[in-house]
């Protein structure tokens, strides 16, 4: 540790904190926040980060809707979600701050560290708006600290617009007793590509921020960690998925830019060629999917990465993948819908589209990672399922997982993750390209280059020989065998474990995807208060494992918690005959003939554990 690290005040111990950094676009709030999260993870803290991304790249400065930033939740123990309200906020101007404040994102009494450069702004309108905002925040019970952020940074750099994020990083490092050596390492890693000057200037700013906070703020905390007992890695879900693509031994990733999926392809583009892989940016979503299918047909493992609107465009090719039994992995990083919807915000609205979206009967596997770690392993699992069952596997991630950072056990590489080398040996005499096993529907595919395996793949209904079906009954046979494959796969699935009471009880919450952490935290809090609630999280949505119906039957009430739209019975026109449920609730009701309710919304935000907890209390008649 160097000299700036010595604190003046005694640090107050905290179990966890939620911190936000809010700015205009391009001011580096996310860089600082991700660094704060990474440093905390490296210190052994539990961490979850979620980026706050406006709809435009450079929205008008100082606008409430233009708030760009990041939330970081750190804790002594594991952290599985972004938490409830922020405890401390750093803001670069009062308007973006008010955007978040109005949305109810800050705890009563939260500390607000606000750049004071607007107080004496030459535009009287701006100065007035600033003064009004500070008054409002003070009278609303927040503890406002006006910080000469701009002025202090100007002592070190000409343009504080670039660099004050590292001053903030330094302030936060002091406030939360972060390891300054780790922060310095982070800065060196982040800025080394921009040259020594950039590294040293940012280090100077960080140290200045640390020193300033030490001298001027009486905010000094420690969120101690339980230490690092095993090797871990910390990254976001899109990076984890990209590394999963490599770990799965894939050869080809074909994509078209779409938010919030693209960063997975960005990361992959940087390193895929080192393992002989190729990221192909196609002219459109359809071409990307066709490209991936072509590569897979030729024996190369392929993935296409997209989001909801892109998946919609790929629908016809998804049908071809199923019909012609060409293995394919499709990663859909979901965003708000329908249509262009909320491109940068989280939603889980693609579930039914993924399962049923293809016209005609198109059985496929649909699975969903619930954590950052899952994003990595899901790609390996998906590749294996796709190849073994000769089918399409849709992996449903979402915007929350895409940019959320979390630490997980460092994966230990296994050669079993990889695809076997492409088979170019002659096909056994008489073997047919769709030699469906009568029981499982499985068949071994022929790959171009294999002698004696010649056939023409077709999206038309076809016989076992792969020839166009002209006789009645052939289509029924094909559909039957493709459906049987799903049943064969379903037999390999284990019943998911109940979180809470395995033996049943009053209320069971069902979830899938990124909401797992928030749901389980809410269940923990409610159970700690004596409430009889449990949860069940589904990884495979199509097909679903056996035993789920029996679990549902053990509870008095069963409901899903989803980031999806559903009708409210409070609306005058809505009744039992016309109420539309959230995606998973529809699915469960249809399969199990159980009256599954749902609690869901589409605010474009990760569901907060506190909101789920409040809902549980209301349901079980024990409100705060």
């Amino acid at each position, binding site marked *: 540790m160097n000299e700036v690290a010595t604190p003046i005040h005694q640090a107050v111990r905290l179990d966890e904190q939620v911190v936000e950094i809010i700015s205009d676009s391009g001011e580096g709030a996310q860089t600082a926040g991700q660094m704060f999260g990474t440093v905390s*993870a*490296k*210190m*052994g803290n539990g961490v979850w980060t979620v980026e706050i991304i406006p709809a435009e790249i450079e929205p008008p400065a100082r606008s409430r809707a233009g708030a760009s930033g990041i939330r970081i939740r750190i804790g002594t123990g594991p952290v599985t979600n972004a938490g409830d309200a922020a405890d401390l906020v750093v803001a670069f101007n009062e308007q973006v701050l008010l955007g978040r404040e109005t949305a109810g994102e800050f705890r009563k009494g939260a500390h607000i560290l606000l750049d004071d450069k607007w107080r004496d702004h030459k535009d009287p309108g701006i100065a007035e708006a600033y003064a009004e905002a500070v008054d409002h925040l003070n009278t609303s019970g927040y503890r406002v600290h006006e910080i000469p952020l701009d002025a202090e940074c100007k002592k070190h750099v000409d343009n504080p617009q670039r660099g004050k994020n590292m001053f903030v990083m330094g302030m936060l490092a002091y406030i939360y007793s972060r390891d300054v050596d*780790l922060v310095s390492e982070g800065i060196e890693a982040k800025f080394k590509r921009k040259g020594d000057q950039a590294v040293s200037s940012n280090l100077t700013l960080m140290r200045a921020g640390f020193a300033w906070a030490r001298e001027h703020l009486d905010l000094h905390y420690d969120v101690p960690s339980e230490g*690092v*007992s095993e*090797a*871990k*890695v910390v*990254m976001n879900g899109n990076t984890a998925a990209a*590394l999963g693509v*490599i770990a799965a*031994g894939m*050869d*080809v990733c074909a994509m078209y830019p779409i938010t919030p999926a693209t960063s997975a392809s960005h990361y992959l583009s940087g*390193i895929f*060629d*080192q*393992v*002989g*892989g*190729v990221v*192909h940016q*196609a*002219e459109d979503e359809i*071409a*990307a999917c*066709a*490209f*991936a*299918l*072509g*590569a*897979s*047909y*030729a*024996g*190369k493992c*392929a993935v296409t990465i997209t989001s909801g609107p892109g998946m919609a465009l790929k629908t016809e*090719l998804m049908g*071809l993948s199923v019909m012609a039994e060409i293995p394919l992995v499709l990663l859909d990083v979901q965003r708000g819908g329908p249509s262009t919807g909320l491109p940068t915000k989280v939603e889980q609205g693609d579930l039914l589209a993924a399962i049923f979206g293809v016209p005609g009967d198109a059985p496929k596997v649909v699975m969903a990672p619930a954590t950052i770690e899952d994003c990595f392993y899901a790609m390996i699992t998906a590749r294996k399922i796709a190849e073994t069952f000769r089918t399409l596997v849709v992996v449903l991630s979402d915007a929350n997982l895409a940019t959320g950072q979390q*630490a997980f056990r*460092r*994966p230990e*590489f296994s*050669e079993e993750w*990889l695809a076997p080398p492409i088979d170019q040996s002659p096909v056994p005499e008489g073997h047919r390209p769709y030699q469906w096993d009568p029981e499982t529907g499985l068949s071994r595919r*022929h790959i*171009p*280059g294999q002698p004696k*395996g*010649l*056939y*023409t*793949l*077709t*999206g*038309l209904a076809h016989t076992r020989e792969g*020839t166009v079906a002209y006789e009645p009954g052939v289509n029924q046979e094909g559909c039957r065998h493709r459906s049987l494959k799903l049943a064969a796969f379903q037999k390999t699935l284990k019943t998911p474990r109940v979180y809470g009471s395995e033996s049943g009880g009053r209320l069971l919450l069902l979830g899938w995807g990124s909401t797992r952490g928030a749901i389980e935290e809410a269940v923990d809090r409610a159970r700690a208060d004596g409430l009889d609630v449990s949860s069940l999280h589904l990884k495979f949505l199509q097909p679903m494992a056996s035993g789920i119906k029996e679990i549902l039957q053990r509870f008095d009430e069963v409901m899903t918690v989803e980031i999806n739209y559903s009708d409210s019975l409070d609306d005058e026109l809505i009744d039992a005959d016309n109420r539309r449920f959230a995606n998973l609730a529809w699915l469960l009701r249809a399969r199990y003939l159980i009256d599954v309710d749902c609690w869901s919304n589409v605010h474009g935000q990760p569901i907060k554990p506190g909101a789920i907890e409040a809902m549980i209390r209301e349901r079980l008649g024990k409100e705060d």
Partner: protein
Amino acid sequence: MFGLKTECALRLDEEYHGLDDYQGRMARWCPGCGDNGILAATQRLCRDEQLPPEKTVFVSGIGCAARFPHYMKTYGFHGLHGRALPTAQGIKIRRPDLHVFVNMGDGDCCSIGTAHWIHMIRMNMNLVACLHDNNIYGLTKNQASPTTPAGMATATTPKGAYLKELNPLSATLGVTNVSFVAQVVEWVPELLFKVLQEAFHHRGFAFVRILQRCPHFMPDLFTSLLNDPKKILVLESEGISLSEATAKIYTNRRDHDVSDLATARALAEDEGQVPVGVLYRNPGVPCYEDLRRPARASSPALVRNVLESAFDGFAINPGA
């Protein structure tokens, strides 16, 4: 023996592929359909080039022409309407050992798959694409296609097609990275074969527009061309010349410099005659699969190293 390679001669009995080795299922096109001639020429090409059937893939979209792969005895991919080109790209990207051919109709190439056509030209992947252009939608029964001549009555344009027909040659010749453009008519088998052969030997994206008769829906489309061979301008260049007998019929000929893009474009736009032969060839355009060729082949050790090094960058180590 015709087209026989020296190394094959040594293992003649088991290795030599005759025409029947490339003949797939019985073609179900209408009697008199021009696709039959294209099929025959293609099978002859495969035989003469002695392409290993298992290393050859015919890719198509949807339409009458798209049934083509079923009638070849090779690997085939009869996929989706308009999507033959990106599918072929995926096949080729990591399998340069495969000979890939694409057969599209004018609906496939010039309508639903137009975006792919333009980008395929730019990517210049090493494969042959044949546009079977009969100026009509046949399989869906007589709708106007982008190449249907203006004024032609069809099921969807009973008073005649409203728009001037699209010129696939001009379109192709206008795209960045164009490297091979040819046009031919399927009713001159000798020329059809030679053009396909030139296309096959071009390293890059070889685009061949084939004027193809549809006797069922467009019986009169090419009548004037058939009756008046002078309307066909034969472009003679290296590899493209007529036999004495054919030359007697097709007297409208000229020497053509295939590297001359400006002339190729002018010929493509000449509405007074139909140029056949190779319009343009540039063997110097890089192929996408070469630009994207991996520096090394994958191996478990390589994957392990790359993953470990990536994890190091994200690592949290015990004792930190």
